[in-house]
């Protein structure tokens, strides 16, 4: 309680100071608050993540809080300096919000020349303890091997936590609009954190798998309108959930059903009018409350496998409602052209994010004229987290080197 009050007081003071200074310099970036203590264990409270009571003025991507953080386990700490940041972004309804994340810069290189990869993380789960930046700092992030590979190759890496990660979390899980803004603004935040010493307008690449694959493609679709100043050279996305309805249907009674329940929570957090409570039964309410309080990836995977929607709902499934379907449809991917080369990949044995809907999105992007390289691997979804890494790294390196990408659309 004490920490919460202290933080509230601090946030209020900052808000007041900024409000006072805005009149003179409307475009000035907000001051970065460096006063928060060190990162805490995943299970502990951490006021760094508590959003300010009023969001400071500034532009999306401006950093409002920062602190030094471990880059991960020992090898990562040798490879990179890292900061946790809170930056301004935009929620799915178009309102200003704040999002946290991690900025990592490789050691021993001229940072003004390094490209920045916006790395969109895979699902870590809805609970506060699953926050990506907390997992990185505390050595629990399962995509650390990919981060280390990027750092070794000399890239700076910006990793969003996505929106809503704080005490009493409100993560808008798998929402394309929220993820797009969070990813693009994480890259801006990396370039606007003075301590990172990156170029103001570096070469930028985006990559991610699973939820991160969806986030990457969403960001790629929106980049030219939301962040036109970013010099994005290419994107790589695997295990892409392009159509949540198809992904959800394929998971009824299957291995990945926990991720579907998490998506219900995410949609409800993103769109207050959906009122998930109106659809869930008592078991559903308690199950989802527990999920949001406690569950991370492993629990989503192990504790709900084989379950079906009707166990948790009354007579009506939320996905049978127009209001829900409209929000899902407006977040579908594959309807907007991506203006940079794309590497999209998917496991042919994917048991969680259906192969067919990803393949369909690829076809749709190709039809829109996207320069897309598509590759499949004979693996399941989880194994696919790491399997595409070498090809992704090669694809991104070619974009930095200026090698023209050769689309395989039509094959």
């Amino acid at each position, binding site marked *: 309680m004490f920490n919460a009050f202290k933080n509230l007081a601090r946030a209020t003071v900052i808000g007041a100071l900024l409000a006072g200074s805005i009149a003179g310099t409307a475009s000035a970036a907000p001051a970065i608050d460096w006063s928060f203590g060190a990162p805490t264990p995943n299970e502990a409270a951490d006021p760094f993540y508590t959003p300010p009571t009023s969001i400071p003025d500034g532009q999306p991507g401006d950093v409002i809080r920062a602190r030094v953080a471990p880059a991960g*386990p020992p090898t990562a700490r040798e490879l990179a300096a890292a900061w946790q940041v809170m930056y301004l972004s935009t929620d799915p309804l178009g309102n200003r919000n704040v999002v946290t994340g991690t900025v990592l810069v490789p050691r021993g290189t001229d940072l003004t020349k390094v490209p920045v990869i916006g790395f969109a993380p895979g699902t870590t789960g809805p609970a506060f303890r699953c926050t990506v930046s907390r997992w990185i700092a505390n050595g629990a992030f399962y995509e650390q091997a990919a981060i280390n590979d990027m750092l070794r190759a000399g890239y700076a890496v910006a990793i969003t936590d996505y929106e809503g990660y704080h005490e009493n979390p409100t993560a808008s899980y798998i929402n394309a609009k929220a993820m797009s803004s969070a990813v693009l603004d994480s890259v801006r935040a990396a370039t606007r954190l003075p301590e990172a010493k990156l170029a103001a307008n570096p070469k930028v690449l985006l990559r991610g798998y699973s939820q991160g694959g969806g986030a990457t493609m969403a960001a790629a679709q929106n980049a030219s309108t939301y962040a036109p100043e970013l010099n994005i050279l290419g994107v790589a996305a695997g295990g892409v959930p392009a159509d949540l309805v198809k992904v959800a249907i394929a998971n009824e009674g299957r291995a990945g059903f926990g991720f579907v329940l998490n998506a219900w929570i995410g949609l409800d957090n993103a769109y207050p009018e959906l009122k998930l409570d109106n659809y869930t039964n008592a078991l559903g309410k308690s199950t989802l409350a527990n999920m949001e309080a406690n569950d991370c990836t492993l629990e989503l995977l192990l504790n709900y496998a084989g379950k079906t929607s009707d166990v948790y709902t009354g007579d009506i499934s939320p996905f049978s409602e127009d209001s829900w379907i409209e929000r899902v449809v407006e977040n579908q991917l594959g309807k907007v052209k991506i203006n940079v080369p794309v590497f999209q990949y998917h496991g042919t044995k994917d048991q969680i994010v259906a192969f067919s809907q990803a393949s369909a999105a690829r076809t749709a992007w190709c039809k829109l004229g996207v320069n897309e390289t598509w590759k499949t691997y004979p693996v399941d979804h989880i194994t696919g987290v790491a399997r595409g890494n070498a090809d992704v790294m090669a694809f991104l390196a070619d974009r930095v080197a200026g090698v023209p990408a050769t689309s395989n659309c039509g094959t």
Partner: protein
Amino acid sequence: MSLRLTARSSVALATVSASLLGALVSAPAAGAATWQSTLDYTCRFPLMRPQPLKLKISAEIPATVVANAPTGSFKITASAAVNDAAATALRALFSTTIEGSADAAAQVVFPDNTSIDVGVPTTVPKQAIPTSGGFETNATGSTLSLRLSKVGRAKITVGDLVLRLTPRSADGELTGLSEFETECFQVPGQNNQLATIDVTSATGVTPTPTATAKPPVTPTPAITATATAQPPVTPTPTTPSGIPYSYGLSGSATLKTLTKGTLPLSGAVDANLKLSTGDFTAKIGINETQGNLVALGFLPVSAKVQILPLVDATGNLSPSTGLTAKTQVRIKLPEVKAFGIPLGGGKDCQAKNPSQINLTSPNFDALEGGTLSGVFAISDLTGCGFLNGIISPLTAAPATRSA
């Protein structure tokens, strides 16, 4: 099992109970002692809340080393129990095997509380992950050879671990985790001392030039030996006749007044202790020692000294009086050189008569060891040629404790 190797307090003989018997064993080979310790850790695995991990470490570490001389590498084996939760997580990611490495942070802590960090890299060979339940992983490795600079009893403590593990799926390919790194932090409040190591005085005292050469005076040997308990390795069936204990032996000898500098002593003591009476017999083996000394105040001399036990030592270990022991040794000086030129010594150069040595240790601990000191007389040397007149006769002097 966890062994009370590192207990600081003296284990009174009367309290040595039958429950300890299973842990007491015969001496390991050739100077190296086997030390064991069990430590609890909390590990940060990917995807999981912090998980407990129990590590059993076994290490081959000599009880005695000479200061600044290479210690040789220490062989380490460690087994870690991976709990069911962590195993379940690995299985959920379609892992069927696991392999990798484990690095333990270790420290050598000198008597003055300064320390050096020692990495202990070990290899975790590829092994199958069972289809249910937790499992044991076994790692083996060795340290680099060290040079320990500070004389006295150093402690070797074990710190945190870093595991670098690669699970593989049934087709032998990487899982979604690829290779992962896990830090394991030692649970606070444990005794993390794995071993002690006695660093004995080294060679190489810098000659101090002096204008006036003093005539040789009678050298006085003084021997201090520190016996260090070697931890049990394999349980040995108890016999009615007693319990085998083995100790590393370290210390130093000086040839006082003739020379400055000390000769390091190392060796082993294999004792057989009768619990009912505290009586023991012991075979003492002392390695040939050599060192660079300074004679006459300026003359660099290298000497080799052998101390050969002639009989088994006998003695008693009691809670009230500590350890007393007596034995007989013959002192030999196989080689004495100045500027590399033999001055004397040789295979026949030895004390005319055996020396009777009485050793005492007021606070000797059967499990931990302790410092033994003794005073003894050495008779005239014979067979030493030129040195007969210089070094002989040797007389007894009070022992001094080594550093």
